[in-house]
């Protein structure tokens, strides 16, 4: 146990063991009740809107969301608001434009929706591959962050932490499928919301429940002074800012593990309820994290010089702001609880991602593309479980290989790819009857290639990692260019092909 939790090891251990015991019991129960693919991928639509809302909120609220947004607010003030507002816009687009079409057109995965109009196999294969790229990158980013965090929090070595997380996520997914993964998310979401509410309450209590005092002291304590209430603390060039915002909004809509959740409820009414409830929960958490915890940490942490290293930087980096604040305003017992919640959060999010990746491999690539829909449910389930184990192994190896990489950038890469490859494919296949199979694949390929290529040629990878003198592409985030290019190519190729229209009906 690291020094961070040395005095609260009992709370950390008991909270985490309780979480493990309850989730593994549910996984065992779910495994006994999982009979076919509909059970495995969608819990047979037996999850209620309220439960699914908690699970969607859990899927979205990763450790990076809680720790990352608190850290960014602490560092830069108002600019962190982009990370708070963009997902709310993403939820609004999902709710108003896509809930009903996704429910009508899909069955289990993103590829079901993208390929619903096309007889041609390549669209399904392409959608499955882009889903897989998004899931794998996101999974590796989460595990790299998780390994570093667990190492810092609990003193477990990075490699061991990654292996423990990888093994547990494979057990949850391969044994219990969507039912187990959903309940892992629900338990984690409840723990996390409780933890954040208590932390926000304790922070406010330390200011005598006086918000104006909190903000006044924050401005006095921060190096930016009143600049913490204005833009400019974090965002660099304007085009990168707009590009990042585009990726965060539209990338969210194409995330495969979020889309999959719409099929776990019995009907459209429950799907609306679940997205709305998830938005309310996330809105509530964001308000506490950004407006209270992030700003409250500025004066409270600065009062404790022992939390800062010789260089003046916070011990453990900005990701540890929430953890340090927990100790300062709520004591050792509570910081132990927050540590256990962070570990539970990591496990739950990687489980949801693994399930989405395994489904893309087994349902889309194996059962639909390779076996043309003729695979038996037993065969498909066997492949899903093998795929979950394989994904777990690949994620563990890649996470060890990518140790120390910038996880915020890796996560933004995921959102850029999702916005450039998945989102155009999904929205056009649902709303534009003129889209052809070739147009869909061409647009998606251009979006995928440009988003990945421009990131490699940009300042973060080309200069910081590959150590070249200057970037070939000058901006950090590519979505401003790659997403419109994907739409344009889809439109141009489909328009040229209009004499050979798509096979099935569209929604219009």
């Amino acid at each position: 146990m690291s020094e961070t939790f040395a005095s609260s090891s009992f709370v950390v251990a008991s909270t985490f063991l309780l979480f493990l015991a309850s989730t593994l019991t549910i996984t065992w129960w779910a495994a006994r009740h999982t009979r076919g693919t509909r059970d495995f991928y969608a819990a047979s639509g037996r999850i209620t809107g309220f439960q699914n809302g908690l699970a969607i909120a859990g899927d979205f609220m990763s450790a990076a969301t809680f720790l990352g947004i608190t850290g960014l607010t602490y560092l830069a003030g108002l600019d962190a608001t982009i990370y708070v507002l963009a997902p709310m816009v993403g939820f609004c687009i999902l709710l108003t434009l896509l809930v009903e079409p996704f429910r009508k057109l899909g069955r289990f995965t993103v590829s079901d929706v993208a390929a619903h109009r096309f007889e041609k196999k390549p669209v399904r294969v392409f959608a499955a591959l882009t889903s897989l790229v998004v899931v794998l990158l996101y999974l590796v980013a989460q595990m790299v962050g998780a390994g570093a965090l667990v190492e810092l929090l609990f003193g477990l070595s990075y490699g061991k932490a990654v292996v423990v997380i990888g093994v547990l996520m494979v057990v949850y997914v391969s044994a219990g499928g969507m039912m187990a993964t959903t309940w892992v998310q629900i338990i984690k979401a409840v723990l996390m919301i409780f933890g954040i509410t208590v932390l926000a309450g304790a922070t406010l209590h330390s200011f005598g429940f006086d918000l104006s005092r909190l903000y006044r002291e924050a401005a006095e304590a921060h190096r930016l002074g009143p600049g913490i209430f204005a833009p400019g603390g974090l965002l660099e060039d304007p085009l990168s800012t707009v590009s990042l915002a585009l990726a965060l909004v539209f990338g969210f809509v194409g995330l495969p593990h979020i889309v999959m959740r719409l099929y776990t409820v019995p009907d459209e009414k429950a799907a609306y309820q679940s997205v709305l409830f998830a938005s309310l929960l996330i809105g509530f958490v964001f308000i506490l994290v950004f407006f209270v915890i992030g700003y409250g940490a500025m004066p409270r942490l600065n009062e404790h010089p022992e939390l800062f290293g010789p260089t003046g930087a916070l011990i453990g980096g900005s990701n540890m702001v929430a953890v340090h604040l927990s100790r300062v305003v709520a004591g050792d017992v509570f910081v132990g609880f927050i540590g256990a919640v962070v570990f539970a959060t990591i496990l739950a999010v990687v489980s949801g991602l693994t399930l989405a990746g395994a489904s893309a491999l087994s349902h889309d690539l194996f059962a639909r593309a390779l076996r043309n829909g003729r695979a038996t449910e037993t065969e498909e389930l066997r492949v899903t479980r093998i795929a979950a184990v394989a994904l777990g192994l690949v994620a563990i190896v890649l996470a060890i290989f990518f140790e120390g990489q910038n996880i915020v950038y890796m996560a933004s890469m995921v959102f850029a790819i999702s916005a450039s490859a998945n989102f155009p494919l999904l929205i056009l296949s649902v709303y534009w009857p003129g889209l052809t199979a070739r147009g869909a694949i061409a647009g998606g390929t251009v979006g995928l290639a440009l988003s990945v290529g421009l990131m490699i040629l940009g300042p973060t990878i080309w200069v910081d990692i590959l150590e070249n003198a200057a970037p070939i592409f000058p901006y950090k985030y590519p979505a401003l260019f790659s997403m419109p290019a994907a739409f344009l190519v889809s439109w141009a190729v489909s328009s040229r092909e209009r004499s050979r229209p798509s096979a099935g009906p569209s929604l219009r």
Partner: protein
Amino acid sequence: MNARRVGFLLSATVTLLFFALVLVMAFRPNAVFGSRGLIYSLAFILLTLVVMGGYSFWRIAKLDE
């Protein structure tokens, strides 16, 4: 009312408002914000939740009919 048109209108409004906010933050950070940035952010979150709540209740009521 056509559900698709209402959905497009609402999501377009929220998206445009968000990008207007982002553009101001990116290009003219001191032009509008002053120290009111927090109020704008909170107002935007609440507006988005109200829009989503209103739309959901309307659609659920329609589905129940």
